[in-house]
């Protein structure tokens, strides 16, 4: 235990004090984004009326406001805001965890096949006429199944080899396998009926967020996040290498499995309600690392907070700018790709 303390202090940087204020600022970020987002939307709700409804509801006043406004606010806008925040937080948090577990900054949650598996699950469910909940549940289960398959294949193949590399490779295989299965279903699907439905689903987006979606997401979200949060300091140890960690008496394999499971839970739950949204899991942890440094004790919460605020603001753009929705994945890619190139360029100059 003593050596552990030493390790931790090794990680701690001299900018310990400013870090606290930075974290406080980051904690305020999603809250501010939430309040700002409340006033955005295609259905115009004047700010005074918005305040009136919110306070009225909080204090249990009898409604003096139009019923429709209340419905828009509580059945449409707030559920969507909550979904966007949870998905953003889940993707960024699991992305940060994956990067630590695989000791690879280029890894993102879909590398082990979660998205491909979920996509296939949804296509399969749509082809078999499941209802909305059924589609989301099937997507969720297949996302987890794909990662489990990757994991066990990796275990079976890489007994005495570099397991991380094997895992990433089997992940690629499982990913393309499930994408192929999805293509088979799309090929079989009726082009006037099922095919457009599958295409719609794979396009993703938070358009159909309702209170039901919020509750469906809440449990896996909290469970996954609590596990990551409790184990966050152990990710630091993993990033030092298995040898060192073993010397400290840490069962690296067990920790890895738990972390991967929790991250997959988060990713699959997100994909199930929002479809595939790329880049968040990759760029937000990097951005967080730029701000708070590599210590997972603060990096993980920072990623989660920034992810929530980021996706919420991007979704605000997606749902308000045009009459029709802008697909979220397009926006995150347009913001994410240039930022990532910037990171690569910056990385190169620091290597030189």
């Amino acid at each position, binding site marked *: 235990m003593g050596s552990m303390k030493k390790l931790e202090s090794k990680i701690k940087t001299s900018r310990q004090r400013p870090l606290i204020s930075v974290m406080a600022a980051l904690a305020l970020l999603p809250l501010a984004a939430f309040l700002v987002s409340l006033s955005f939307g*295609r*259905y115009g709700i004047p700010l005074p009326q918005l305040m009136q409804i919110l306070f009225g509801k909080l204090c249990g006043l009898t409604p003096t406001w139009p019923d429709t406004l209340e*419905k828009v606010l509580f059945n*449409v806008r707030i559920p969507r805001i909550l979904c966007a925040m949870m998905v953003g937080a889940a993707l960024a948090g699991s992305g940060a965890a994956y990067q630590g577990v695989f000791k690879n900054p280029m890894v993102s949650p879909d590398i082990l096949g979660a998205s491909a598996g979920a996509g296939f699950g949804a296509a399969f469910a749509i082809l078999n006429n499941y209802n909305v909940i059924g589609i989301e549940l099937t997507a969720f289960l297949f996302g987890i199944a794909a990662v489990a398959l990757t994991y066990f294949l990796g275990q079976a193949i890489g007994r005495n080899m570099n397991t991380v590399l094997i895992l990433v490779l089997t992940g690629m295989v499982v990913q393309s396998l499930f994408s192929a299965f999805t293509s088979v279903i799309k090929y079989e699907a009726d082009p*006037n009926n099922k095919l*457009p439905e599958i*295409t719609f689903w794979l*396009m993703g987006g938070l358009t159909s967020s309702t209170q039901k979606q919020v509750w469906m997401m809440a449990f896996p979200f909290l469970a996954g996040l609590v596990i990551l949060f409790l184990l966050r300091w152990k990710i630091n140890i993993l990033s030092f290498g298995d040898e060192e960690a073993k010397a400290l008496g840490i069962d690296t394999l067990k920790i890895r499995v738990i972390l991967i499971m929790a991250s997959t839970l988060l990713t699959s739950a997100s994909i199930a309600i929002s479809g595939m949204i790329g880049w968040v899991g990759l760029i937000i942890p990097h951005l967080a690392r730029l701000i708070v440094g590599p210590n997972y004790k603060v990096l993980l919460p920072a990623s989660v907070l920034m992810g929530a605020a980021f996706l919420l603001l991007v979704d605000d753009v997606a749902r308000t700018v045009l009459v*029709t929705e802008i697909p979220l994945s397009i926006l995150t890619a347009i913001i994410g790709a240039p930022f990532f190139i910037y990171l690569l360029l910056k990385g190169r100059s620091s290597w030189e």
Partner: protein
Amino acid sequence: MKSKRFKFIAWAICAVILTFSIAGCSTTSATQPASQSPSAAASDKREITDMLGNKVKIPAKVNKVFCTSPIGTYIVYTLAPNKLLGWNSKMSEDELKYISPKYKNLQVLGGNMGGQNTFNTEAITALSPDIILDFAYNGQTSDMVTELGKQTGIPVVIMDGALKSTAASYRLLGKILGVEDRGNMLADYVQKSLDRTAAMVAKVPADEKVKIYYAESADGLKTDGNDSMHTEVINFVNATNVVTMDTSSSGKGASVSMEQVLKWNPDVILANSRMGGSNFLKTIYSDKTWAGVKAVQNKRIYVPASLPFGWFDRPPCIARVMGVEWLAAKLYPEYVKVDLKSDVKNFYKTFYGVEITDAQAESLINS
């Protein structure tokens, strides 16, 4: 030991290839004699101008047609079904109920739909169609279809898929397929039917124009804009599509937010029962949020029939002629006084050659 195993595998592969090539030969040789003779006899060519203004040389006698999408397949089916080489996708049991027994088992050839190619160029070539029939919307054609024509040397005839061109399509296709009388008869039917509805809906005053939202998909939030080939019927019957936005005509559609739908507050929701729409219809009247929409409060959600072909959309085909009358009657009962039931029976008999019962007609009207 190892080399022995490899040898076995090699032999096995050879055997598989051999079986497949023999099977492949036998299928082609079976279709070849039947298909080659008529087109060889009709070696004279004639030149026609298709609806995009292209001059195309086609055989004097056209006996076999491959249509690249259901839009073409369905119009040829109503005009000269014996010249149809096959369907574009597998028909469902419900759809087959309205198809004459003779054509129920027509082979499935695939097509070019939703930007995706599912036909096999060699398989199409082996069937030696006299022409390839394609439908364009706003003059837009698919490169894949043009490429198919170039690769196979089979003439590609391109028609205009707009609703108002339906009668003209029947006339031209009647000439091309050598069934001018039927072509003209169906064209007259289409023109008369469309003109009659157009005259009736023209009397609807501007302030009584109905605002329509077209809901597709399970959440009801996917739609098509008013410039799309998928919503032409709405414009035709003098109603307003609330989605005035330029959405793509490629068939992908657009999604909108629930807030936007509440803001539009449409008088009528047209719900596509396909593409997950059946799930939408199950929940729409019990959903708290959708309850805020006028169309839901007034129970004005209409579902266009889709059997055997879509009356409104998916695909936007000749059945829209019936859809126009139906939608006009649903939207403006004061102005559009028609006997829907007898018109539906008449339409199915004239175009599809099937007698339908009163009950069937009613279920199509109120599906």
